């Protein structure tokens, strides 16, 4: 008997993460065929839980900017819950405070773009993968992408998290009083390698925060 599972390297769509993948087969016409399909659909529904329930919020269409900011904060916190077991408690609390501040109606400009869900998910995945001990400052790009920034003295690193696990990074690094500048777009799993020549510990390790754990 075998229970071997082949690893799918292709990155799935955002909504597929953590969801059971129930594939509906070719549909036959017999009662048995329909019953099997119904059981599979029931299984998919059964695995939905109350917090992510299938009922529909009434009046869910946000109209005012205050409502939209509120909904966005709530959505990003729900996304964080999916990986919260890998974040130190203080890390997570600090992240939530940053989100509250970033999406605060008092400081919000009507022309600002709300944070992009896919970009935020890239940010979470990057943080858990890179495991910086030092928390970044967080901002939003003009297009709603999450921007993480670390500054140590004159040394600056900025990473804009793009959807689908891509990152646009820019750095200025002083070594022996010479400033090196570099920029690039990389998949987030390559961030440690592409930053390695610039000794990124100066940004990531120079703190007392606990790194995310995996």
């Amino acid at each position: 008997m075998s229970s071997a599972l082949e690893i799918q390297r292709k990155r799935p769509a955002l909504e597929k993460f953590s969801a059971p993948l129930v594939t509906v087969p070719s549909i036959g016409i017999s009662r048995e065929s329909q019953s099997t399909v119904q059981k599979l659909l029931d299984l998919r529904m059964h695995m939905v839980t109350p917090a992510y329930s299938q009922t529909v919020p009434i009046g869910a269409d946000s109209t005012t900017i205050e409502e939209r900011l509120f909904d966005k904060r709530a959505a990003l916190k729900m996304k964080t819950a999916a990986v919260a077991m890998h974040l130190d408690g203080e890390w997570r609390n600090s992240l939530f405070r940053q989100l509250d501040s970033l999406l605060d109606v008092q400081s919000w400009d009507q022309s600002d773009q709300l944070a992009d869900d896919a970009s935020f998910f890239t940010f979470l995945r990057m943080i858990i993968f890179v495991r910086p001990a030092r928390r970044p400052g967080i901002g939003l790009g003009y297009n709603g992408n999450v921007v993480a920034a670390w500054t140590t003295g004159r040394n600056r690193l900025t990473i804009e998290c793009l959807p689908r696990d891509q990152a646009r990074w820019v750095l200025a690094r002083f070594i022996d009083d010479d400033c090196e500048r570099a920029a690039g777009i990389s998949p987030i799993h390559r961030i440690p390698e592409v930053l390695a020549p610039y000794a990124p510990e100066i940004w990531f390790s120079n703190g007392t925060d606990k790194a995310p754990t995996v």
Partner: protein
Amino acid sequence: MPYPRPPITEAVIEIRVQGPIDREHLDRVQKRALARFPLSEELAHVGLRVEFPTPAAQAKIQHDWAGYKLSNVDRTDFLSIGPNVLNVSRLSPYPGWEAFSLGARQQWDEWKRIVGHQKIVRIGVRYINRIDVPLLERSVIDVEDYLTFHLTLPKIGLPAMTNFTVHARMPLGSDDCQLALNSAATPSPLIGHISFILDLDLSKENEVPQRDEDIWILIERMRDHKNHVFEACITDKARELFSR
């Protein structure tokens, strides 16, 4: 055994009553709960009703009010109330059984104070776990290295599975409870990982206790049973992943 980083993505305690409870009482429960769960949304079941008058059929979207879903500002603690259900759930990070069950009990006490006595028809305790397994350099992973409740295929030269979902339902054999077990592979939210869902749902629908003391003794016992089943469904290799 308490783990440093429990893989629980959601814990649920649910009490279903015969109901239906009227809207006025549920509105009062919702208002009282706002102190702890300030975010509240109304829920509806959406259906499509097709009427066949002559000469043409008419389709109408029908919203049936289904209750409220409330949560704390961090969106980790949820309270769902409906005409025949009270449901408390907690997302990750899991604060431990004492804190979780105490919160559920407080909501139940409040519900009962407002709604009054209702016949309880079902009590459920459900834990959904997600075990994140690092891939390292592997292209194939053996599910049985991590889960003891999984699918096995006959060795007839088939390539490895690309996905699986298993569902089983059975009597628990204790306290006249039912056990529903689900396990599935799922894309991991972590880079370089695959995840397995292990979903345990314990419920009691026969001779459901009606007195508060008995209800919470049963829920405690269901939690013990759940732990026993969970430990039996995972391997030491899985345990290592969330014990560090």
